[in-house]
């Protein structure tokens, strides 16, 4: 599964990302949250998306990041197939008893 890029290609990539309007993957990483929350200005967004077009690693990373985020969000939502949870009678009783104190 691992397919690490040959060293020469990585060096070329490293140099390319130093050109104007280019950022490294490490810089890209710092922009992800703001990008997803649409907080980047037009220039930052352009630079971010340019990197995304050129970099297979970041493209795949971001895609997996989004999927993982979506799964986290869904994990907190009730399973539509699950039966509705019963009201915990003991706890209701405890809450009501504490209120009477």
């Amino acid at each position, binding site marked *: *599964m*691992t*397919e*690490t*890029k040959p060293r020469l290609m*990585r*060096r070329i*990539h*490293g*140099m390319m*990302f130093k050109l104007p309007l280019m950022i*490294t*993957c*490490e*810089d*890209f*990483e710092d922009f*992800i*949250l*703001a990008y997803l929350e649409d907080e980047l200005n037009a220039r930052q967004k352009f630079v971010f998306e340019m990197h995304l077009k050129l*970099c*297979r*690693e*970041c493209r*795949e*990373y971001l*895609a*997996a*990041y989004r*999927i*993982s*985020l*979506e*799964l*986290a*969000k*869904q*994990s*907190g*939502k*009730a*399973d539509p197939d699950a039966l*509705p*949870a019963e*009201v*915990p009678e003991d*706890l*209701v009783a*405890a*809450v*009501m008893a*504490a*209120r009477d104190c």
Partner: protein
Amino acid sequence: MEADSRSQAAKLDDDDAIAGLMAGDAGLTELFVRQHIGWMLAVASRVVRDVHHAEDAVQNAFSKVFKNIGSFNRQSALKTWMHRIVVNECLMLMRKVERAETVPIDDLLPVFDGNGCRIEDAWAIMETPESLILKSDIRERVSEKIDLLPDNYRIILVLRDIEELTTQEVAELLDISEANVKVRLHRARAALKRLLEPLVRGQGI
């Protein structure tokens, strides 16, 4: 609204609930407790990850609700106000609780080479959230992975991405800066992405 109804389908609206609680009406109060206890327990369980502590947090939260209902200012829905209270009670409890095993965050963060280039395995298969969510017990498996995150990070991911609080609200609850919330949220998401990779790659976990 019949105050004596114990049907779970019966729902108090905010006005009836507030009036009932302020008047100390036992029937309405019980109806109110039954109406809200389920989701409050679900929230508390997600935050504290322990059934007994979750129950304690819910009980404490109801005490706070009963005590402070007079000062509820109606700037939000009653449920939103109660959500903040239960989260806050969870956070207070968690300060006293040692949690089970977690994975150090540094082991889960993205890796870069000396040129600042990302080291990321090529993805042969990438499942979609839609297909993954149809798998049985997926929520449980994702929750188990979230549990492996250190609390400093896990709490922020749970509050922001699952409980859907704003960055500002999380910053206030935890008494840290918004910038700090953002940094930790991103790290938590990146770490979770690493933990969920086998699943997203179709390898199961």
